[in-house]
C-alpha cells in the first residue's frame, strides 16, 4: 500500500484557500496555501492526478480480487515484474513524451526497436565486441530520430508523414538484415540480460535487473532535461500551439530544439531496442508492430495533450504502469490477451474526454472571471409563471 495517497494533496490544499486575503498581501499561511491550491488545481496537474487515481483504482481492484490470506496482490514483486516486463515501453514513452510535448508524433519507434534488435543480434553473430554492438544499436535509433527531426524542421514535413516514412524504412531494413528470427547466444549479452539483484525470500522474492535501472536512469535524465534546462522549457514552448513562433520570438532556439526532440525519441527507441533484446534474447523482423501506438497510448493516458505543450514525464511513467497493470489484471482474470486492447481503448477514450472537459472548463472559468467585475446578472426569479 505504498502509492495510495499520492493524489491527495490536490484536494487538501485546495480546501484551505477559502477566506484567503487579497492576492496583494504577501506572507501569511493562508495566502501561501491559496497559491499552492491554485497551482495544484492547475489544468496541467489534473490529468496526471487522474492517471494516478486510475493507477490506485486498479491496484485497489487487484488487491480486493486477487489477495489471498498468505499473499497480498500489491507487493514489491508486482512492481518489480511490471518494470521488468515494461522497461522498454517506459523508455519509448519517455522519448515519445518529448515529441508529443512539441505537438509532434513519432510513429517509427516500434520499427526501430525491431531493427535495433536485429542489428544487435547480427553484429554479435559476426563477433563484434559487445560494447560496440550496444553503442551501434543506440546509434541506429539516434540516426532515425535525426532523420525525422531534419525532415520535420528543415523540410517542413508533417511529423506524422516523416515518421511514417522512417517507420517503413526501418521495417524494410529489418528484412535486409534478416528475414528470420536471430537468436542471441553471446555470453556477455546474456549475462547482462540475466543479471539481477535479489531481494526478499520465499514467495515474496523480487528483483532489480539492468533494464529497470536503465529505464529509471532514462526517466531521471528526462526529468532533468525537461524541468531544469532552457531546452526543456523550449520543448514545452514549442507546443504552445503557434508552430513555435512564440519561442522563436522569445529568442530561444526553436529550430534546434525541434530536431533534438526527435533525436531524443530516436535514441530512446535505440535504448528500448536493446532492452527488448535483453527481454527476448533475439532479434526478429516482426517484433514491435504497433509498439509505437502502445507508447503513444501510455503518454496520453499519462496526461499529455496530443496537441502539445502539456504533460509530464512522470505522468507517462504512470501511464505505462496503468498499461502494464491492465495486462496483469486481464491475465489474472483468465481472459484472452486481446481484452487488454479493449480496456486500453476504453481508458484512452476516458482520458481524452477528460482532457477535453478540462480545457473547455478552463476557458469557461476564465470568461466567468472576466464577467464578474460588471454588475452580476439579475437574480433568477424562480416560479414567477
Amino acid at each position, binding site marked *: 500500500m505504498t502509492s495510495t495517497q499520492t493524489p491527495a494533496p490536490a484536494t487538501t490544499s485546495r480546501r484551505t484557500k477559502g477566506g484567503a486575503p487579497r492576492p496583494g498581501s504577501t506572507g501569511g499561511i493562508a495566502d501561501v496555501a491559496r497559491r499552492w491550491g491554485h497551482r495544484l488545481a492547475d489544468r*496541467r496537474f489534473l490529468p496526471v492526478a487522474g492517471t494516478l487515481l486510475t493507477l490506485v483504482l486498479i491496484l485497489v481492484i487487484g488487491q480486493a480480487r486477487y489477495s489471498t490470506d498468505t499473499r497480498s496482490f500489491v507487493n514489491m514483486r508486482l512492481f518489480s515484474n511490471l518494470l521488468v516486463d515494461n522497461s522498454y515501453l517506459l523508455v519509448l514513452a519517455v522519448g515519445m513524451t518529448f515529441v508529443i510535448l512539441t505537438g509532434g508524433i513519432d510513429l517509427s519507434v516500434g520499427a526501430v526497436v525491431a531493427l535495433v534488435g536485429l542489428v544487435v543480434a547480427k553484429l554479435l553473430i559476426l563477433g563484434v565486441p559487445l560494447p560496440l554492438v550496444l553503442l551501434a544499436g543506440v546509434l541506429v535509433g539516434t540516426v532515425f530520430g535525426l532523420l525525422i527531426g531534419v525532415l520535420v524542421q528543415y523540410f517542413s514535413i508533417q511529423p506524422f508523414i516523416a515518421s511514417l516514412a522512417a517507420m517503413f524504412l526501418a521495417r524494410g531494413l529489418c528484412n535486409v538484415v534478416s528475414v528470420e528470427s536471430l537468436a542471441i547466444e553471446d555470453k556477455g549479452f546474456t549475462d547482462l540480460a540475466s543479471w539481477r539483484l535479489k531481494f526478499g525470500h520465499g514467495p515474496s522474492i523480487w528483483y532489480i535487473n539492468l533494464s529497470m535501472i536503465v529505464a529509471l536512469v532514462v526517466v531521471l535524465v528526462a526529468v532533468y532535461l525537461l524541468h531544469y534546462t532552457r531546452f526543456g522549457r523550449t520543448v514545452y514552448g514549442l507546443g504552445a500551439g503557434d508552430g513555435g513562433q512564440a519561442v522563436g*520570438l522569445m*529568442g530561444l532556439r526553436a529550430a534546434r530544439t525541434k530536431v533534438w526532440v526527435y533525436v531524443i525519441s530516436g535514441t530512446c527507441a535505440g535504448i528500448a531496442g536493446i532492452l527488448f533484446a535483453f527481454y527476448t534474447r533475439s532479434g526478429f523482423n516482426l517484433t514491435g508492430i504497433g509498439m509505437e501506438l502502445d507508447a503513444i497510448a501510455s503518454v496520453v493516458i499519462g496526461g499529455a495533450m496530443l496537441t502539445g*505543450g502539456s504533460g509530464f514525464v512522470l505522468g507517462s511513467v504512470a501511464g505505462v504502469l496503468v498499461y502494464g497493470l491492465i495486462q496483469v489484471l486481464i491475465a489474472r482474470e483468465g481472459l484472452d490477451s486481446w481484452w487488454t486492447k479493449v480496456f486500453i481503448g476504453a481508458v484512452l477514450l476516458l482520458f481524452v474526454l477528460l482532457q477535453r472537459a478540462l480545457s473547455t472548463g478552463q476557458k469557461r472559468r476564465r470568461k466567468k472571471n472576466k464577467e464578474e467585475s460588471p454588475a452580476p446578472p439579475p437574480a433568477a426569479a424562480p416560479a414567477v409563471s
Partner: protein
Amino acid sequence: MSTTSTTASEPVVRMTGITIEFPGVKALDGVDLTLRPGEVHALMGENGAGKSTLIKALTGVYRIDAGTIAVAGTARRFDGPADAQEAGVSTVYQEVNLAPNLSVAENIMLGHEVRLGPFVNWPATRRAARTHLARLGLDLDPMSMLGTHSIAIQQLCAIARAMVVDAKVLILDEPTSSLDKAEVAQLFDVMRQLRADGVAILFVSHFLDQVYEITDRLTVLRNGRLVGEYLTAELPRLELVSKMVGRASEDLADIEKAARRTTTHDLTGREPVLRALGLGRDGTVEPFDLDLYEGEIVGVAGLLGSGRTEVARLLYGADRADSGTLTVRGAGVRAASPLGSLQRGVALASEDRKKEGIIGDLTVRENIALAMQAERGAWRKVPAKELDATVARYIEALAIHPANPDALIKNLSGGNQQKVLLARWLATAPQLLLLDEPTRGIDVGAKAEIQRLVAELASEGMSVVFISSELEEVLRLSHRVVVMRDRQKIGELTNGPDVTASTVLETIAASGSAS
C-alpha cells in the same frame, strides 16, 4: 509635464529618410522618426500608411533601402530582432507572442534565467521575475500559468519580458486592440511608470481617445510618406483625422456635395427587416441598437478599427453576440450563424476578399455557386442549367471581365473578383446584404459600377449595409449613416443636404461620446 524635460534630452532613436521598397511598391518613402527618452510617441496613420513597415525597419525585420537609423547617437544597421534587442529596442507585438502553457516566470525570464551549474535555479529565476513584475506594479504569482491570466496581464508580462534586457526603447504595436477599458487603464499606468523611468515608448493605436490620453508627441504617416511630427496637446483631433485621411475637412465637404444623391425616404409605420437591440460582443463591439428597413442603404462610417467590420459580423452571425437581441422580419434570432443568416436572406460580403471571400483555385462559376449551394445544403446540387443561367446573368449584369465562367478567379483583377463575390451573394437573392468594404483596392471605374449596382438593388427593395472607409462613398449612397468610434456606435445621422463629410468627421472627433 514630462515634455519639458524631454525637449532638452538627446533623442534615443533618430530615423531619417527611411525608404523601403517592395516589388512594385514604395512602402516607405523618406520617412523620419525621432524618439526621445521619457516620452510616449504615437505613430498614426490609416492601414497601409506604413506604420508597421516603419516599426519593422526599426526592429531589424526589414532591411532599409535608404536612410539612416541612429540609436543613442550611433548609426546602426540591424540584422534582425535579436540585434535590435541588443541595442535596447524591444517590441511587444499586437498578438501576445508568449507561450501560454508556460508559467509567468518562465515567459518573462527564459533566455535570461538564473542558473546553478547545469540546472536552472528556479527559485532565483522566480524571484527575478517577481522583481521585474514589481517594477511594472504587478503582483502575480510567477509560478502560475500565463494562459490562466487575461490578455491584458499577458500583454503586461510581454512588456516585463521586454524590460528584462533593460530596453531603452519599447515599441507597443496595437497593444490595446483586445483589451477592455479597465485593462487599458492598467496598461497606461505601466506605460506612465516606464516613461517616468526614462524609457522611450512608441505607441501604435487606432484609438484616438487613447492616443490623446497617453502620448506626448505623434508622427503621422500617409501612404508611406511622412505627414509631420506634432505635439499631441497642440493638434486638435479633427486636424489629426484629416491629416491621416489626407484631405482638409473643407475639401471633403466639397466633393461630397457634388456627388450627393438626394433621397426621400419615409420610414414611418414600417416594419424593419432587421432590428438589433443592445447587440454587442465583449472586446469587439459595445452594445448597439440598429434598425434596417426595406429598400434602405445604411452606411457605416468610422476609422479603421472602429468596429465597423465587427458590426457586420455580429449582424451576420459570423461572430456570436454576448448580449442583446437580433430580430429578422419580426422573428427573434437565437444564436445567429452564417448558414442561418443565409437562410433568412441575410448575406455578408466580407472585407478581406483574399482571405475570407474568393477561393482562388476555383472558377468564376464555382465561386458564384458556393453560397447558393451552401443555402441548399450539400446533398441537393444546384441544377447545372439553373447555375449556368444565374452565372451568365450576373456576369452580364455586373460586367465581369473576362466574361468566361470557367476562368480561375485568382487570375481576375481585384475589381472583377469583388464583382464575382457580389454575384455570389446576390445569387442567393438576399433581402439584406451586408457589404464590408466592397470597393477597397479596386479602380475608379469598377468602384462606380459597384456603387451604381448597390443603389439599384436598394431601389428594388433590398436593404443594404454599406461599410467603407471612404466617407464620400458612404455619404453618396446611404440614407442613414451609423458612425462608429472605438468600437462604439457613437451616432446615427439621417443623410441629407446638411450632412457632409465634415459633419461625420466632427462626430468622430467629438471628445464626449454622443450617447
